[in-house]
């Protein structure tokens, strides 16, 4: 997966799970690595009542539409997100899903699966809120195109106003990176 022209990502879950920040971290690091990027959240009343998602495009050519309808990569933080977006993944796409909250198995057989116990891993590190960084860790490992050290720099930058959370988030990222496998 490390070679691509355009990669389209959907990060989806419950409000409060940090799905938007996960997408933003991927976009920001990719930007600093020289890619063209865009990030767009779901917005308006669809956010109320719990669900949230964002769409990220990382590309070697200028980004066309920022809106992703059939992603190469899905980060599913909970079961409704898996159920909502699994069918839209491109054949051969990567499905990174939070095994802690998703007890069902994906239906598609043409995907590369990256199950990760993200919430449990974050819990063990002391804060469920770091679930998103575990998921990003799994993404970086699975896709293999970003240097994990650069992501950690970006985490420091992202949490500059809340320095007490930097270490936790870096640890969560590392744990996710360790726990996932690279897709060849």
């Amino acid at each position, binding site marked *: 997966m490390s070679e691509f022209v355009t990669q389209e990502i959907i990060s989806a879950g*419950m409000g409060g799970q940090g799905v938007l920040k996960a997408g933003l971290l991927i976009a920001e690091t990719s930007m600093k690595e020289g890619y063209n990027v865009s990030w767009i959240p779901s917005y308006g009343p669809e956010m109320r009542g719990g669900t949230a998602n964002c769409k990220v495009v990382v590309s070697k050519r200028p980004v066309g539409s920022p809106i992703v309808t059939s992603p190469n990569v899905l980060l599913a933080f909970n*079961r*409704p997100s898996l159920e909502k977006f699994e069918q839209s993944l491109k054949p051969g796409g990567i499905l990174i899903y939070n095994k802690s909250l998703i007890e069902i198995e994906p239906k598609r057989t043409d995907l590369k699966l990256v199950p990760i116990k993200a919430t449990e891993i974050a819990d063990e590190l002391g804060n469920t809120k770091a679930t998103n960084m575990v998921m990003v860790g799994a993404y970086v490992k699975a896709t293999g195109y970003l240097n994990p050290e650069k992501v950690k720099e970006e985490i420091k930058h992202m949490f500059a106003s809340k320095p007490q959370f930097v270490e936790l988030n870096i640890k969560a990222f590392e744990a996710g990176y360790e726990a996932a496998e690279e897709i060849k």
Partner: protein
Amino acid sequence: MARKAFVDEERCKECGLCITACPKSCISFSSKLNSKGFHPIEIDHEKCIGCGFCIDMCPDTAIELWEVAEA
């Protein structure tokens, strides 16, 4: 015949307004998740007196009051 409150777990959004209204403290959040990812309430029918206060407060019409056969 006794009256008891029953919850429709799929409708419950875990707001807990019923819990604050219950005079018998017989409502709590269960550990299970519904399909929306909420922990629905559960009602201890031993303690429930069927007052319906929980129904007054429920924003999601998730609770009903039934007459039940005595145990």
